[in-house]
């Protein structure tokens, strides 16, 4: 889990988690509501620089992470850009014998907007996820008065994910050592066997963990500790300046 690892090391880690979440989320909302290329580009540049320079996430890692959603974005933006029809359409089109695939000015603009909007959205999300470990985000959700069951489950699932990943990697390694992944058919079988035994060991572990909870006096309420970092006036001020700039760009951009 690349993102979690770098979130723990981030230079932005010691900023107030609630403020980071609010900042990233408000930013996301503005990006999708305004939907202008200049604004999206600005947000993308700002968020990437903040993550890279302030958060000290290595450039290589950041580039790799940015490329994850790229395939989906490129593919669906192309689909939005291209219009199929039975007659020639727009400025540029190619005849595919039966139908015409064309790009109209409108469809191209929409596609470009969607593309940059999505990239800006992802860079804002990374600012949050590459600087804030999940347990701090869940604590923020707790403060927003989400149902207790929900946040308790989130805390526990976050812990258990790492335990199960550890188990599943060991199982897969031992399956590989026995040539369990040669050929498609064997791979399917090994995958299912690993998944099946993972489920069984997960349930066994859950019973042991419940006993561990009971022995520590569990009575239906789980309390999780998480570090709190104070909200500084300078942070609020810089966020305010950022939003003013954002507002000005939104006014003039295309």
């Amino acid at each position: 889990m690349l993102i979690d690892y770098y979130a723990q090391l981030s230079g932005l880690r010691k900023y107030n988690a609630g403020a980071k979440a609010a900042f990233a989320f408000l930013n996301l909302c503005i990006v999708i509501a305004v939907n202008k290329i200049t604004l999206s580009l600005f947000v993308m540049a700002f968020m990437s620089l903040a993550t890279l320079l302030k958060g000290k996430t290595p450039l290589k890692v950041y580039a790799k992470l940015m490329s994850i959603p790229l395939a989906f974005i490129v593919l669906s933006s192309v689909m939005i850009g291209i219009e199929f029809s039975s007659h020639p359409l727009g400025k540029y089109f190619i005849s595919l014998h039966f139908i015409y695939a064309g790009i109209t000015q409108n469809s191209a603009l929409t596609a470009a907007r969607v593309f940059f909007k999505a990239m800006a959205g992802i860079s804002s999300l990374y600012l949050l996820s590459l600087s804030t470990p999940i347990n701090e985000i869940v604590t923020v959700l707790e403060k927003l008065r989400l149902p207790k069951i929900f946040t308790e489950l989130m805390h526990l699932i976050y812990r258990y994910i790492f335990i199960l990943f550890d188990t599943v990697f060991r199982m897969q390694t031992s399956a590989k050592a026995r040539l369990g992944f040669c050929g498609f058919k064997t791979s399917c079988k090994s995958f299912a066997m690993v998944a099946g035994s993972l489920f069984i060991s997960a349930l066994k572990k859950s019973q042991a963990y419940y006993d561990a909870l009971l022995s520590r006096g569990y009575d239906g309420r789980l309390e999780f500790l998480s570090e709190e970092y104070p909200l500084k006036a300078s942070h609020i001020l810089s966020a305010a300046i950022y939003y003013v700039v954002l507002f000005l760009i939104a006014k003039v951009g295309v």
Partner: protein
Amino acid sequence: MTKLQNFILRTSVVLSIVFAVCPTAFAMHIMEGYLPPAMCIVWGVVCLPFVLKGLFTIKKIFAENRRAITMLAMSGAFIFVISALKIPSVTGSCSHMTGTGLGAILFGPCTVSILGIIVLIFQAILLAHGGLTTLGANTFSMAIAGPLLSYGIFRLCKKLNVNKKVGVFLAASLGDLFTYCITSLQLAIAYPSENGGVLASAAEFLDVFAPTQLPLAIVEGILTVLIVMALESYAIPELKAIGYEA
């Protein structure tokens, strides 16, 4: 030109584009920032009754059996881990299961709606699949619509006394396909085609994701059958404990 010719042509064009651009296949998460604000809110509101129902169901389970808390948390973590594993694939690309079909068969659709929304949040934050503003849309397609259909088919096949393997296969793969149809529809409603509206646009999105999603649905079906069979031969008591009826 006949409809069939049209379909073949489109599919082939799209196939070539897909293999040129995209070497990896993704589960159908709508990416962060992709939907306009109105759509984000609408899909969130559509999810609300299902999520509330799930929440009440889980509350009831906890009231009856406190032990369920670690069990449900483990189940959620299990769905997450399964969906993050690379699955064997024919083309050599890297793809993932959705895992929600399996979840629906094992835990029932109400529980899965809650576990699914948590898993989707974690996928967005930890793996950068999906996003926070698109959470509503993704929850509806992956944690509600897909599992509901999977569960429905699974129960129906049981009632009709269809072979269990066939039932599980149909449930998982059709659930997966349904998820992908819903996602395409969501994208199409958000970005309708200029000359043809939502339906034409939906056909485009269906086409473009079909080459990765169709094989994926079949593989997911096969894997789910194998997993359920493995579980039934080793873990009947555990399965009964979580409410699965063999």
